[in-house]
């Protein structure tokens, strides 16, 4: 039995949207090297729509696959849709993740939210702080 689904392996082996956006409108980074995973998301935003997205990930196979899948799921979508993206939706789109790897999908959700928050902060757009949980306080890295 394989550790990961075929979809996870496909996104791990052929990750979509890898790279950086030099003139990104929002950048979010979550996780830390001590825990073994860092995810960084770059957003290009026009008229509240994500016209381009790139990621860089230091982490295990499921972290890379989660980043790839999550970026695919928000590309071309309005910001409001991106903010609705849940880790569960990412994991489901990947045809499931092993229980101990679910936090990888959480990182993907948080990295996107963090990038959107950065965009709001840069442009002085008001937002509900409760929508953006602080990664540093999640139990994963305790």
């Amino acid at each position, binding site marked *: 039995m394989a550790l*990961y689904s075929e979809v996870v392996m496909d996104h791990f082996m052929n990750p979509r949207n890898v790279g950086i956006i030099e003139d990104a409108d929002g950048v979010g980074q979550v996780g830390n090297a001590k825990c073994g995973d*860092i995810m960084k998301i770059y957003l290009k935003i026009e008229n509240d729509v994500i016209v381009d997205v790139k990621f860089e990930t230091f982490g295990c196979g499921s972290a890379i696959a989660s980043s790839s899948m999550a970026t695919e799921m928000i590309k071309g979508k309005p910001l409001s849709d991106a903010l609705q993206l849940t880790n569960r939706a990412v994991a489901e789109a990947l045809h499931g993740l092993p229980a101990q790897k679910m936090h990888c999908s959480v990182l993907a959700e948080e990295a996107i939210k963090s990038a959107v928050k950065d965009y709001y902060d840069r442009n002085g757009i008001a937002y509900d702080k409760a929508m953006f949980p602080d990664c540093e306080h999640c139990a994963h890295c305790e």
Partner: protein
Amino acid sequence: MFVYADNAATTKMSKLAIETMVPYYESVFGNPSSLHSAGQEAKEALENARATVAACLGCDPREIYFTSGGSEADNQAIISAARYGARKNKKHIISTAFEHHAVLHTLNKLEKEGYEITLLDVKEGHNVTAQQVKDAIREDTCLVTCMYANNEIGSVLPIGEIGAICKEAGVPFHTDAVQAAGHLHIDVKAQNIDMLSLSAHKFHGPKGVGVLYVRRGFPMTNLIEGGAQERSKRAGTENIPGICALAAALKDACDHMEEHTATVTAMRDKLIEGLSQIPHCALNGDPVNRLPGNVSFCFEGIEGESLLLLLDMHGICASSGSACTSGSLDPSHVLLAIGRVHDVAHGSLRLSLSHYNTMEEIDHILTYVPKVVQQLRNMSPVWRDLQNGVREYIL
């Protein structure tokens, strides 16, 4: 190309070991405790295997106890010494920080019972010295347990020197020789070893069978109660096919040790030299006193599990001490013990070789590891930060 380079995890069984097992399932299947001829034939096979193992270790057959594997042997050795020590009011145990969990978790259990545990530091040279052991020995020390060779980073400990110090101090000495048996020369008498654990599947024998050597006269504590098997020290009908195959595989390994050491060491050194060319990496473990088949590196800026998955796609079976491969959040205690920080310990790779590997396979590994490391670095934000000077290189 399929390259199995995870021989420290387990090995492929030799034809000899497989062929040795078969008759004990097909024809000589009796219970050695039975009085009839079928049982007595099995009993004879059991005692022949015991004599073979004893000859390989340099001890008396009566000092050999067959177990279910290395973990059971480690547990029984440590518990035996602890119980014996308690009877004499000695409840201090010395070990090392990079032991296998079979040892460390048993020591944790004893610590909760009130024993005091000293774990020797292994940062210096990724090894321990006999002097460290000497300095740690106290009046109330009831056991020194130091592995013969480390399973993750390959360091080979100065077992003979430690044995001499323990003998002089009158402290029982156990060694977990799971990675050493069949690969390094062992002589329990000359090395003053009181107890030693080994496991068949690390030298091309079957899984589920191991040995605990205990010097005659050392009082043992049973872990498994029941029948009078193994001189009443380990109950349960003996795994005759496994035991006979263990003996055959160990003898075969010892008979060909010189030749196998030469070929495996040459492959190991080529791998180490080749992988050292990758920028910002470091060899883990003692560079000189090292298992013939162990190659262990940390690569900065990447994570080990994704490295293993990509190598697997290129047919290479390897191992890592990264947290993601262990199911826990912390990377390997061995890598942390030798002083690798978390960030770097996550990016570890262990390749462990056997004489079944070939130089062509080593070339295959040397082709793909640098490519895969670069591939992962190219998508790593940590690597980008290192390259841009935002973060400082550790390696």
